[in-house]
């Protein structure tokens, strides 16, 4: 097993550790981010590292109970805040087969439209530590477009699996568009986010994607994020010169043909926009 593969297996194990620790709150949690994309659509013929080691969990405050406090549940299971100022970033330390120390992060995220805290970062969930979870824009679809899926370990020796809500492809698409936009020009931009957009477009039939997207547009909680997301996606992926297309090409690198990546983005996003008209 390569070191990279081992990190993926470890990342999934830590994600399961976190879900195990958050047991009583599991109904309020939706898996989002790269692990959700991978669970939904796999690699989609883009043989580039499909996910980072982070596990992203969205929290629906309307469902979340006050007890036990999130921070207590996580710290009891060996997680600790990344830094004393960090908000919503929980770290687990593990050792690889080569005895190297590895840190795996679990991010607790609250969609902006449903966050009780109105500040810039801290979600301020009642009953939980101020820094337990942070506000994220564009993630609102995750509490509208999600399905229960089985999340299992990636190594045969770990028998655990959880039935957990996983964000649907439309919610993930909107979240990625916002993330690309928010990070553009900040130095925290990651080309891989654009490749995830293409993976979602490739791996989901247009009818299904459009129906899910329509649901986001019709729900008050996700309407605004979805509307903005649609404009962002069009600007990022509908033209050859769109920033998303360029990021996807860079991310796919030498393993894929640049023109094919570009044409695929344009065609599939065009299909979606047409289906939403």
């Amino acid at each position, binding site marked *: 097993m390569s070191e990279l593969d081992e990190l993926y297996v470890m990342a999934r194990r830590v994600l399961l550790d976190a879900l195990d620790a958050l047991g009583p709150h599991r109904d309020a949690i939706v898996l989002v981010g790269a692990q959700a994309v991978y669970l939904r659509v796999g690699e*989609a*013929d883009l*043989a580039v590292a499909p996910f980072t080691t982070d596990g992203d969990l969205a929290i629906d405050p309307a469902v979340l109970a006050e007890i036990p406090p999130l921070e207590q549940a996580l710290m009891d299971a060996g997680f600790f805040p990344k830094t004393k100022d960090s908000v919503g970033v929980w770290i687990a330390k593990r050792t690889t087969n080569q005895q190297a120390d590895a840190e795996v992060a679990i991010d607790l995220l609250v969609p902006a439209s449903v966050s009780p805290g109105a500040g810039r970062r801290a979600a301020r969930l009642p009953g939980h530590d101020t820094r337990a979870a942070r506000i994220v824009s564009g993630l609102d679809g995750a509490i509208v477009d999600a399905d229960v899926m089985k999340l299992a370990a990636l190594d045969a020796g770990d028998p655990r699996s959880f039935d957990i809500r996983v964000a649907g492809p439309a919610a993930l698409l909107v979240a990625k568009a916002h993330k690309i936009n928010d990070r553009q020009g900040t130095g925290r931009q990651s080309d891989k986010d654009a490749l995830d957009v293409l993976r979602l477009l*490739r791996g989901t039939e247009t009818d299904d994607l459009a129906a899910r997207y329509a649901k986001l547009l019709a729900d008050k909680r996700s309407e605004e994020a979805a509307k903005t997301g649609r404009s962002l996606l069009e600007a990022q992926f509908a033209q050859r010169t769109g920033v998303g297309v360029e990021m996807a090409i860079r991310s796919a690198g030498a393993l894929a*043909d640049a023109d*094919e990546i570009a*044409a*695929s983005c344009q*065609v*599939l996003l065009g299909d979606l926009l047409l289906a939403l008209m």
Partner: protein
Amino acid sequence: MHISDNTLVREGLRELRRRLPTGWIVGEPTLEAISGVDATAGLVAPDQRACTLGLEVRARLDPKGVRPLLDVAARSRWPGPLVVIARYLSESTRARLREGDLGYLDLTGNVRIVVREPGLYIEAQGAAEDPDREERPARSLRGAKAGRLVRVLLDRKEPPGVRELASLTKIDAGYVSRVLTFLDSEALVTRVGHGRMQSVDWPALLRRWAQEAPLESRGVQRTYLEPRGLSSFMARLTKSDERYAVTGSLAAAALAPAAPARFATVWVRDAATAATRLSLRPAESGANVLLLEPNDEGVFEGATQRDGVWYTAPSQCAADLLTSPGRGPAEGEELIRWMQTNEEAWRR
């Protein structure tokens, strides 16, 4: 004037009679070479006005031969209309004859005769291609029939006889025999005794065929985009009930080691129909699927199904790869190496 020319003139005039307007008569030819032309024939109009056609007979006439023929015609000082009769005249030969103001007539029905007195104008289209082209000795492996024949020679462990080859390929035995003579002279097959084939140097034959009949000469190519990627495309193929066969890198990868394929190359009967059914978009840049309409159905011969997808026979795939762009030729050679070490797996 040869006997065969004699036959040619009579057949040519028969052809002309079929095309004359009602009441017109063309007489039997006079074959003595008088006044410098090969033959003559009388032409009578319904009102009994008449003239004599001068006939120049050529078993074969290529465009290059028209100029000397015009010189012959000029020297003959034949006063009346002149008509060239040949077994077959290609479009470019006919164009040059028209420019030189010579009438013509071939046995496939290409006719142009202009007579001023009595006034007659006949122009008709016959065959666009020489129907007897194969009567010429085989000199290459270009063309659909040669391809079909080569495939059988490649795929059979025991070289079949001429008659068996003819029936397997539905090609007439005369042509099969001529191709075998050619292959023998090129040392691509070994024959013993009365021409019985003993062995086929299949790797050499395969490379020679690929070289003489490159992929682009064997069909029409169209490029498409499957925006969802090749896995999606292959999944759709498993549900297709049209006739198709995947060739190129994807087909080779199942047998010989290869880098992941980025391009699907598939033989289909009708590219436009297949593209619609497989949800492909026509694409000039960024294409990942190449659909090929074959000149001959032989490309589907020996296709096998793996995981629900139809793939061409290894010999077909190797020939296709050897003249494909990019890594194709290298992958073709890799496949030939696999075929050499695993002969029992594909030669029957």
